[in-house]
């Protein structure tokens, strides 16, 4: 049996993040090349109930680190747990989602293990010898780099959310669950999370949304974002924004799509009143379907759009909201 693939499956509040299941799915596809075991590791304060979901999504072995001290993310504690596990298992690869947690944990882990680190991958293959070849967007998505790890050992990768698909859940008996014993006293958490302040109103998170409705200067006034919020609510979408309206103070920075904002890969991106500056296009060009609504037929956004409507967004967006509601009611 070849060395296993270790997948860090992120959870918050006792719920697995979808991107962890996506990483598990990709690990299973790669493991066919190397006939490796796929080992899931979950860290948190209440994770015992997650084993069935992990087994159903392809984990052949499950490691749990469960302790009240692990309620919040701690880069020091989490790194120590995963690094110590990796030293014992000698995995060919360590995979996780490119989330705020994954992109924090992976570099610290890579420095501790002296490992190759490939962040925010959108394609991942394994050579016969076990070396990973990753494709990762660079320059804000204007180009892609294909990189290869020199040594097929403990290669660390973070996967961009919503790009890889999880395995179709297949009811599987949970065979192997091990609880990791960690002596928390021996690890001094150097930086400590005091609290998590939730963003108000239970807003949908941009990087996790399958549909995003985004607005730019064409909305003319900050309160006109209400039109987009209505459409987003009909579609079950998150609301994004261009840099121009974030810089003008209409929307918080966490809503900004593009360079110096979020890079997103939703199934559907609806750009309303966004002309399409190169920095914005870089952040959303990997969306599967792009709809552009703009009154300027020469706006660069139309070059990327799957479907475009040239016209007045104040007329079109409310009509679209009604049509979507009708469709959903059917």
């Amino acid at each position, binding site marked *: 049996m070849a060395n296993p693939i270790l997948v860090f499956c992120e959870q918050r509040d006792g719920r697995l993040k979808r991107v962890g299941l996506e990483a598990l799915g990709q690990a299973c596809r790669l493991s066919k090349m190397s006939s490796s075991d796929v080992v899931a590791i979950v860290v948190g304060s209440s994770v015992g109930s997650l084993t069935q979901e992990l087994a159903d999504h392809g984990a052949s072995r499950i490691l749990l680190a469960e302790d009240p001290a692990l309620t919040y993310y701690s880069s020091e504690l989490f*790194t120590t747990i995963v690094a110590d596990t990796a030293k014992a298992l000698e995995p060919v690869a360590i995979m996780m989602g490119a989330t*705020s947690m994954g*992109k*924090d944990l992976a*570099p*610290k882990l*890579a*420095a*501790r293990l*002296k*490992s*190759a*680190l490939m*962040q*925010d991958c959108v394609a991942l293959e394994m050579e016969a010898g076990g070396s990973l*070849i990753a*494709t*990762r*967007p*660079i*320059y804000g*998505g*204007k180009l*892609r780099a*294909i*990189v*290869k*790890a020199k*040594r097929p050992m403990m290669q660390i990768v973070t996967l961009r959310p919503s790009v890889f698909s999880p395995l179709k859940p297949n009811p599987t008996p949970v065979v192997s669950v091990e609880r990791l014993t960690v002596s928390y006293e021996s690890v001094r958490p*150097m*930086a*400590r*999370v005091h*609290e*998590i*302040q*939730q*963003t108000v109103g239970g*807003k949908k*998170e941009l990087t996790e949304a399958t*549909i995003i409705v985004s607005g730019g200067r064409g909305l003319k006034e900050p309160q006109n974002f209400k039109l987009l919020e209505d459409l987003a609510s009909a579609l079950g979408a998150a609301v994004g924004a261009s840099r121009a309206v974030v810089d003008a103070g209409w929307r918080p920075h966490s809503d900004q799509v593009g*360079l*110096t904002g979020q890079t997103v890969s939703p199934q*559907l991106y609806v750009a309303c009143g966004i002309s399409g500056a190169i920095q914005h296009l870089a952040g959303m*060009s990997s969306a*599967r*379907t*792009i709809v552009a609504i703009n009154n300027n037929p020469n706006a660069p956004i*139309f*070059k*990327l*759009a*799957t*479907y*475009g*409507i040239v016209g007045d967004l104040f007329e*079109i967006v409310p009509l*679209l909201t009604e049509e*979507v509601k009708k*469709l959903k009611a059917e």
Partner: protein
Amino acid sequence: MKLIVCIKQVPATESKLAMTRDGTDIERAGLTFVVNPYDEFAVEEALQIRERLGSGDVTVLSLRSHAVQNPEQALRTCLAMGADRAILLSDPAFDGGDNYTTALVLAAALRRLSFDLLLFGKQAVDDDDGAVGIQVAELLGIPHVAVVNKLEVDRQNKTVVAHRQIEGGIEVVEAPLPALITCQKGLNEPRYPSLPGIMNAKQRLLEVWNRETIEIASEAVGSGGAELKLVRLEPPPPRPIGRIIPDDAAAAVQELVRLLHEEAKVI
């Protein structure tokens, strides 16, 4: 308080990029290069901390990571903004490295300097890695808080409290000094260098440190020490040709919803 900011020079974000013929680099001739936008937040934050405390000094540090790069210019921009000292790490042995070797070189240099707080941008907008700052903290054995959009320094208790942006919320993190912070947009508004600042920065001496200054083995850094190898660059996959839906607004919207439902199957 001693503050050190690590910066990188990158192509301006509005640049149109082309690949070299062999596909292993971008065409750099004719591009405008700037201080990485996230690093500007780091420089600004260091200057504001110095101003708030009424004392302290701000050192900027940059690594020449490519033969065709002008980090001197980026360092002078930071001096013009108000930094006190600039150090350039430059040695052919550093070329062709990856995130790990970059962190090794920076950590080796930082061990020769004293500091209370290290500031980085949350990522450089060329490699989009967001790794080096965190790797440096681990190599130096100090705490880090990444992607910070609010920062308070408590000089008495020698701690920082940082707000870190995560999905759907903010993590409030406390760390003892010395610590490393990576900076996110929203932290501050970077100042423009003043004209006297620019004139003054032109006269200033940049310290240049090479491999021997930081006593690091040449095989540990650069392409030899790297764990990653670049195979090639490629353009993003072309998008399918789109279409403009004609007709009056009501009919166009009906057709759009039909296409999204039946053809694209996304709603």
